[in-house]
């Protein structure tokens, strides 16, 4: 997403990353990743739950398809890292786009841990919104 951030800003959008880790871990994360957009914490999972982001199960995690996708990621150079204290390996993430009035215009809830929307799909949602708001 870092690579597409300029494009999102050009469209008039902003990015906010939310983690359920404790805020003190965000300091290390921000330092490591040098992200150009803000990262905030939701350690009580209030927003996660409100957006309908659920926990998966170990059974789902160990399904062949998920393991295969992790293998593919590793073949592309990704390496698994140890979870930080307090993190929950079963918690799923998601991506949402809000309009300028905080209305939900795009929803993507990950069905399993490796499931994320295509970046092009996210850019399209923001571009569509930017066009509509310009009218």
């Amino acid at each position, binding site marked *: *997403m870092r690579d597409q951030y300029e494009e*999102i800003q050009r469209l*008039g*959008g*902003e*990015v*906010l*990353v*939310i*983690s*359920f*880790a404790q*805020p*003190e*871990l*965000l*300091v290390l*994360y*921000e330092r490591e990743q040098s992200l150009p957009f*803000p*990262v*905030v*914490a*939701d350690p009580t999972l*209030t*927003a*996660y739950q*409100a*957006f*309908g*982001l659920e926990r998966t199960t170990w059974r789902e995690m160990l399904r062949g398809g998920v393991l295969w996708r992790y293998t593919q990621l590793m073949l592309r150079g990704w390496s*698994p*890292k*140890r*979870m*930080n204290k307090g*993190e*929950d*390996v079963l*918690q*799923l*993430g*998601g*991506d*949402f*786009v*809000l*309009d*300028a*009035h*905080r*209305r*939900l*215009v*795009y*929803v993507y809830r990950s069905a399993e*841990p490796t499931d994320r929307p295509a970046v092009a799909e996210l850019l399209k949602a*923001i571009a569509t*919104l*930017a066009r509509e708001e310009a009218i």
Partner: protein
Amino acid sequence: MRLGDPVDDFPLLRADGSSVTLSAFAGKPLLLIFLRHLA
């Protein structure tokens, strides 16, 4: 929460522990990325 629904002004925490709410980032199209973990 469905498409078109207004989203509550959720309380969040910045890395320094200070409080902020979602509305601080409103006013323009906003992509929210909920992470699974910080890896």
